[in-house]
């Protein structure tokens, strides 16, 4: 299963953090820092997208990440997930973000961090992949938007 998902920028600022393995709150920032230290040290062209840190996560884990412009998308998963599959999943996630925000950039993720979380909830749930079809995710998000506006609630 997916143990946690972290989106962090080049400077180490978190843009999204989700933990599915019950990591206590006090430890979450430590995980963020360690993971950032690992991925930010690796060069983009020379390295593969996989890393490990036994001290932090124990034996059964893999840190899988992709670096897009200013952001690292990091997934920490156990051996029940396919490493290459997760790379595709990151692709799907980014694709959905892109169609939601139209040319997504870091600022979108900062000011709409709640929305990013909702999008993620449609793709990953309880550490498992629930939907991989970008169109299905989009139509669910649109359905929710419609429901919200029909209740004329506002948010901001």
């Amino acid at each position, binding site marked *: 299963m997916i143990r946690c998902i972290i989106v962090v920028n080049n400077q180490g600022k*978190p843009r*999204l*953090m*989700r933990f*599915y393995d*019950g990591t*206590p*709150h006090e430890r*979450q*920032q430590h995980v*963020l820092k360690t993971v950032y230290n690992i991925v930010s040290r*690796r060069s983009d062209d*020379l*390295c*593969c*997208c*996989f*890393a*490990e840190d036994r001290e932090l996560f*124990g*034996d*059964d884990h893999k840190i899988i990440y992709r670096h897009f412009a200013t952001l690292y998308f990091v997934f920490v998963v156990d051996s*029940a997930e*396919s*490493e*290459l*599959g997760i*790379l*595709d*999943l990151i*692709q*799907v996630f980014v694709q959905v973000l892109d169609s939601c925000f139209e040319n997504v950039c870091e600022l979108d993720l*900062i*000011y709409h*961090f*709640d929305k990013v*979380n*909702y999008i993620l*909830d449609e793709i990953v*749930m*309880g550490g*498992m*992949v*629930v*939907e*991989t*079809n970008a*169109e*299905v995710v989009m139509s*669910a998000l649109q*359905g*929710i938007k419609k*429901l*919200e506006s029909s*209740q004329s*609630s*506002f*948010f*901001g």
Partner: protein
Amino acid sequence: MSIKLRELIRNIRACKTAAEERAVIAKECAEIRTAFKEEDNHYRHRNVAKLLFIHMLGYPTHFGQMECLKLIASTKFAEKRVGYLGLTQLLDENTEVLMLVTNSVKNDLNHPNQYVNGLALCALGNIGNPEMCRALAREVENLMGVSNPYIRKKAALCAMRMIRKVEEIEDKFNHKIPTLLEDRNHAVLLSGCALLITVLEINPSALSEFRRYVPTLIRALKNMSMSGYANASEYDIAGITDPFLQVKILRVLKLLGHGSVDVSDEMNDILAQVATNTEGAKNAGNAILYECVQTIMNIEAESGLRVLGVNILGRFLMNRDNNIRYVALTTLQHVVTVDMKAVQRHRSTIVDCLKDPDVSIRKRALDVTYALINEENIKTMTKELLNFLLMAGPEFKEDLVTKICLAVDRFAPNRRWQIDTLIKVMCLAGNFVQTQIRDNFIYVVMATPELHTYTVHKLFFSVKENQTQETLIQVGIWCLGEFGDLLVSGSAVGPDQQPIKVSPSEVLDLIETIDRRPTEQTIGASVMGKTAAAGAAGSSGGGANSAGGGGSGVGGVGSAVQSANSALVTQEYIITTLMKLTTRFPNEVPRIRGLLEKYSASMSLEIQQRACEYEQLLGNTWDKLREGILDRMPASERAKTLTTDRPSGDASIDEVPTTANHHPKGGDLLDLNDLLDLDTRPAPPGGAVLNSHPATQTSPHKPSTGGGDLLDLLGGLGGELAPSAGAPAPTAASGLDALADLNLGGPTLNSHPPPAAAAATAAAADAARPPSTGGDILDIFGGTPSPASPPTAPPAGGKSFPPFTAFDKNGLQITFTCKQDGSDPKRSTVEASFVNTSTDAMSAFVFEAAVPKYVTLSMDPASASVVEPFGLTPTTQRISLVNSAQGEKPIMMKIRISYTHKDQQVQEFGQVSDFPKEL
């Protein structure tokens, strides 16, 4: 009036310093608290959203927990949504207030709107605790059967969490799985597979029940791999139909096919089809191929299919994409255990990956390379690895050193080669050798008396040339203390057939130089080195070495503490060695006394105490006893078990640095011949082999001058004398045989090794004499450990079964060897063997087992409560079983293992169902 979320984010982003940010957040949190206190309903969801952002930045936000529950109970969707998000982020499953939300979640699960259901399911799947899971299982079960796929997929994953969290509803959802597996919606099928995988993981006995759905899964996979599946085009990634689902199905097939030939047969065709038809140009295709190979390797596949699988991995290894190479190496590591030969074919490619710039790939390649080492290729492989040791960065060295030493221990063809290689490793990377490996080396030396002369010479010259490698120095000093007399006796002969002459004063000179290394400076320097390393780790070599003037630097990764420690340990070695040398170099006693004196003022309590004791020991009162107390260490029990029947190899000295003085003198080659191990096996290692491979094979860094000639000569002699001569029996110094039985721990009990050795000898001397003469210094020597109880032999007769792995996780491997009682087939004994392949010992080790009612079980105590690291000595425990349903039901066992590892309590559970069916 509260500010908007966007405004808060903007304010935080405008902060220039961390202090400024803290102030902004503290102010905002205060306002949010007030709003919460005033029961401000209008802005509550906005405030919780702000808290979510603050939480992400790492500030405490627990005061918002209750507000989430209020939002969840709201009728407005937007508020509900923030509430649920807050629930999963601001709370965790141990938060007490979580119980209060159960009712709201229940209402939402029954809500007519699918998105509300979705929110509730999602929250439950993310954070549901056992109580919630029990209370809401029925609702989730109902939702798994609704017509809306959006709800079905989420309900299935929710069920997955429930069976993980609550044991007793483990099979409540089993009857829903077949419908999920037939679902035409991809996401639902995907969730169904995930649920099935979890069921099989929790309860392996459900395997047989689900094997009959293999055809269903094969059909779905076939449809996708032929790209004709309904609605499939939406799931396309780079021209491949839904790679996620294909991967998931392959994974389920892997679990279902494992251990069943029939089921594996059913899958053969589809796996071959996927393996050949999938386009491997893009990541998505490779993901499927990768999973397919893993399935092939795990099921009982036909050999043809296996070949296909390994070939795919071979192709992966050549791939330019790092990710692909990485997964290929990961998989090869598993394949090695299944089909070693197939992987050997790719050996050179794998070894090449050790050079990869990417550390993840290097690590993986090292693991596979290590797994590939066997008796046949140990020499060439070690040579390769030593080459990489030269180039490897500091962060990689420790791993590499450990792996080389483990491989050498396991497969060395003879002792001579083993000692040579380990010394070589310590010369190259002595600062990265772990203490256990150092101790092990000493055990090996101790247990090989025919190589004592050789080893002490080799170490003397190695240390002389290389005074920066701490471990090398420590073992060198130890050897000088034990075998100093052999070094100065002049009995050894160099490659030029002249005896090697080392004078006692030369030995003491060397010890003095080592002792005078600027240790304090080094400690200070490595503190600076540490800060530097923290800033830019990987800067080769580390500042310690250069700044310390060739002192005992620990390289870039060593911490200051470690460096200070190892310098102290070296001093501990030095004083005991000096003490031992008083009997070996009787003419040098005054000088040694002078050297020892300065330690009586040492800052280290241990060293100071020892020094004072040794000073006493040098007094006249001890004249008679001193010789016995300082005698050579007997080979310990452990050392004896280490020396299996491995030949010791050639004991001749084939390299002497030019610095050595040797005088022309009649060589006594025949003496050396006694030391030669003359093995007459078909492929004899040691002396005879040297003859055929002069100067290249035996020692990786042999100088080309002269060495070959001597070896040729010796080899010839060896051949002639082969029938009569034999290696001397590896007994310890004769008078000490009785002492050996006491099983006094080794000479290197971690922190203060040599003193312990002295203590052992002295304590033994104490035992041999009337207690009244045991003076004050003997008081400090602690009691001797009681000998370990030898494992009782299993009853004779009956049928034995090959050992199988019962558990393998986090470096702990448990192997069961079953034996059926000859007279009563219901009875059997299981020899459980615990092997710890990690680098730290597992202490307070407790193994517990539970069996079904039809089996009765009794266990003997384990052979030790500690499992030694590096897989050195397995701890064993005997289990007796009586299966009253023998022949009808197989034996099953649930096991619980608890131990302390690296100061952490570890508890593991497992299920063993691979017992032989006959039991």
